[in-house]
């Protein structure tokens, strides 16, 4: 029986695309002084991959670039959404980044703590308990 690898390539591209985007958007938004530069870079990379996907006669290459390109285009849009998370205190601010330092002055909810970096405890917690729990982690 001959195996069909298109599903495996689609799976690997989806997983790698989402994983890379998840990690890269957080990291780059945290250190980049501007949002427009990574947004344009990811947008262009996404468009280039989609063009490659449209032009290649190779089915597996078209599959991988088609999926990876779309995830990069989504990531381009995620940079500003990540900044909103920082403003709400849902993602940690980086005080060494001038853009984040400004957010820390302007938005009272901004924190340098990552409140998600712990195991679940199975019950709602107060803000004070939430901070204690990440310290124990």
């Amino acid at each position, binding site marked *: 029986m001959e195996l069909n690898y298109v599903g495996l390539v689609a799976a690997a591209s989806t997983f790698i695309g989402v994983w890379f985007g998840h990690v890269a958007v957080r990291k780059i938004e945290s250190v980049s002084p501007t949002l427009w530069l990574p947004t344009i870079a990811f947008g262009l990379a996404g468009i280039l991959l989609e063009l490659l996907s449209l032009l290649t006669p190779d089915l597996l290459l078209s599959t991988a670039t088609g999926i990876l390109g779309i995830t990069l285009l989504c990531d381009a849009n995620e940079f500003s959404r990540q900044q909103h998370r920082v403003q709400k205190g849902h993602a940690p601010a980086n005080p060494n980044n001038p853009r984040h330092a400004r957010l820390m002055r302007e938005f009272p909810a901004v924190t340098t703590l990552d409140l998600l970096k712990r195991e679940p405890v199975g019950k709602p*917690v107060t803000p004070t308990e939430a901070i204690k729990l990440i310290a124990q982690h």
Partner: protein
Amino acid sequence: MNLFGLTLGIITLLMIGLGFVWVIRGERYFGHLWWPYVMGFGVLLILVSLVISSLWTSALLGAFGASLIWGSTELKEQAVRTEVGWYPFHARKILPPFAKFIEKWKAPHL
């Protein structure tokens, strides 16, 4: 022009979008301890995609399987988000079989 990759990319995006919904709702009512079952089902779908000759069925099964695996690694963090009040917390959850064993494993998060 080869529209296969672009079309597949757009459908995959919708499946990833659906992932946000099922991770939030699934964690709320079933809890994060279902993660090994969700992950296993994702792996199974990818394995099945290998033996399916239809291009579209194989590609969509593979992409959906990968989105399930990714979602399974997000369940734990979603549980913490509900505990800190960013999402509604639902106390009575329908736990998976062998929940007591799964509790002892460290849930993956990427």
